[in-house]
């Protein structure tokens, strides 16, 4: 009895499937890389590298500062801050000035996430919130035509959604879906390369790191709404494929709308959530004031998420 060994005592269960938050975020970062490397850095060069690096590093720095300030355990190891920084950079034009990036990551990390209590507590997608606030505050820096004016590639460098807004369907006749898919379009650093985003999204859906119901419902929402507009007035409203492959639609569907904390987890709520996002995106684009409504649409569906959580299956043996 004297030489008793000390044992670890804890509560059941004694197995774990080995999933980790850091692994989850790392895989989402991996999935975003093709779109950034091939679509962004290759196309826009050194300025894009600068924006991405600054965004990721400052996002992590803000997280660390907030951890210290609030005397909480350091949480940059979970990869969430890096992921937010990366996704934020993907939505920016390659020539975004340094102060815009730093302000943006501040808004995303501090206002979007940390003041709600950190990971899991945020009601809104931090990236979408930050882009929306910056877009309202400094509109000119999100005018891709003006920001990317010095780039002169061998394809049309006019921002497709701006062309649609200004000139209607006649303004977008020269664009082709094939160009959008291979990244031959103007836009955010990581938002132009359609195939890369689709592959990344498919990977995440198959692995279960994002909830496929949300992404597919979102794309279906965009498609159906755009198709309806197009059927009613094909002169003013573009066809659904144009909406799906331009602007922030794909990155929104796979990376923004699926953010864990701000999205529902039950089947029917996920479908409503996604479809509502798609609907709002096209509504804002077609009849709203903004060129691209994706981030605003995502904020709106984030807002209805707590309501959607009320729709839930009856628990086993529940006594009514």
């Amino acid at each position: 009895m004297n030489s008793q060994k000390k044992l670890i005592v804890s509560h059941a269960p004694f197995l774990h499937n080995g999933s980790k938050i850091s692994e989850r975020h790392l895989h989402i970062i991996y999935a975003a890389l093709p779109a950034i490397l091939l679509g962004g850095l290759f196309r826009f060069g050194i300025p894009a590298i600068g924006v991405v690096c600054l965004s990721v590093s400052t996002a992590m720095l803000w997280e660390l500062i907030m951890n210290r300030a609030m005397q909480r355990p350091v949480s940059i190891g979970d990869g969430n801050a890096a992921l937010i920084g990366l996704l934020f950079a993907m939505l920016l034009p390659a020539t975004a000035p340094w102060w815009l990036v730093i302000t943006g990551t501040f808004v995303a990390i501090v206002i979007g996430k940390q003041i709600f209590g950190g990971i899991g507590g945020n009601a809104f997608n931090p990236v979408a919130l930050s882009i929306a606030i910056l877009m309202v505050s400094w509109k000119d820096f999100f005018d891709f035509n003006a920001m990317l004016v010095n780039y002169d590639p061998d394809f049309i460098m006019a921002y497709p959604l701006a062309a649609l807004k200004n000139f209607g369907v006649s303004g977008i006749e020269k664009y082709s879906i094939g160009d959008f898919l291979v990244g031959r379009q103007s836009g955010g650093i990581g938002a132009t390369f359609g195939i890369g985003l689709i592959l990344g999204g498919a990977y995440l859906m198959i692995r279960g790191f994002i909830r496929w119901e949300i992404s597919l419902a979102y794309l279906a929402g965009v498609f159906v709404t755009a198709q309806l507009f197009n059927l009613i007035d094909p002169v003013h409203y573009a066809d659904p494929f144009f909406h799906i492959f331009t602007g922030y639609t794909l990155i929104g569907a796979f990376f923004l709308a699926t953010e864990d904390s701000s999205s529902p987890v039950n089947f029917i709520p996920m479908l409503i959530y996604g479809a509502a996002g798609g609907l709002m995106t096209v509504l804002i684009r077609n009849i709203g004031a903004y060129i691209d409504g994706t981030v605003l649409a995502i904020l709106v569906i984030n807002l209805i998420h707590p309501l959607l959580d009320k729709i839930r299956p009856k628990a086993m043996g529940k006594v009514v």
Partner: protein
Amino acid sequence: MIKRSFFGFTTPRIQYLPIPGNVTAPAVSKQPENATLLVPCPAGDVDNQLAKKGDRVKTGQKISLAAAPGAYGIASLSGTLSSIDRFPGEAGQEYTAVTITATGEEALDDAFSSKCEPTLETATAFLGCLPGAPSFEAFTDPEKPIHTIIVSGMDADLLVMSAQYTLSFRLEEIKAGIANLKAITGVENIVLATAPDALHGFGEIGASVVAMEAAYPAGLPRLIVQKVLGEEIPNDKGFQDLGVSFFTAEAVASIGRAFADKQLPLEKIITFIDKEGNRSLVSARIGTPIADIFKQHDIRLKEKDRIILGGPMTGHSIFSAQYPVQPNTDAILLQDREDVSLTSDYPCINCGDCVRMCPARIQINLLVRFLEAGLYEEAAEAYDLDACLECGLCSYVCVSKIPIFQYIKLAKHELERMAMEEVAAEETAIEETTDE
């Protein structure tokens, strides 16, 4: 041991492992020098007239500690009672630990063999501590008659194979046990629940057979009862309210053997799962310290290992290898300190894995926020705390490693305690008014 699958878009299913084809008979452990019985009787209620330190007991002798019908243990050794101590169990349960030190020749007690008739009186008096821990309490309540007895040939937890072994190799004893059960209780409707691949060869057993699914947690008692009754059990109803009584296969086999041998069996069949996940069967007398079993089977224990009684999902870890084998100890799982999965205080990130996994369809992502804040009443009212089957799958898949299962157990325990305090307060209030 079981890792997250590569494909994550569907609900993962964890299958029960079938008993290996080349399973060998349980390795019999030697008779220990000391055996400790944990008697469900608070130390304050122990009646020194019935049992005291220094008493001599024979093997198979009933040691009553109090007048309450369940407050007894069956001596698994011949010797003297070397200590009778308070023993706090899990979640506020109070036991009294009775330690018997073996002295002299083994002698068999004849109290049971002298009136070895299958009556309810004998069963409640002697059979409660049989391996498999059968309970006859439900049959004594005339207001809630039992119409169905369910015998589970399925191990509730993963990796455990004690029930499957009993069903495969002790069928004759189960058959005799079922006949005895019918005689004891007068219940004719007996249902045997088995794993799906074991659904043959039970023609003459005297019970109808129901096959369960092979995916965890189908072997949990509540799900078995639900399958047999063919409907969901309301959360506010226990098995007894539904007229159902639940026995494990080993309990039934033990009943059969007790009446056939006219002696109470004392050997418990235990699945031992070693650090590498290899499974083997051992049998040991009830009361044997686990350290004795380890010593005999040459199992080395290191500092900061984890010993778990019961299966990996629902068992409980113990703080000393001196803990004795109990009538319901189906498995001993040994984990190396390297493999011990720890919980964390990370917040819920709302990934929804637990919600997809939950067999009871509870909104765990919402529930856990209330449990973390200690809002147990709200959790029970609005977020289906009562529906929990206690399978542990939510904690198993939790990416934040939140001890969800522990929170749920704690919440249930606290609610129970609060309800009891309320009742007690009401009773004293009534007493006070009557005094005036």
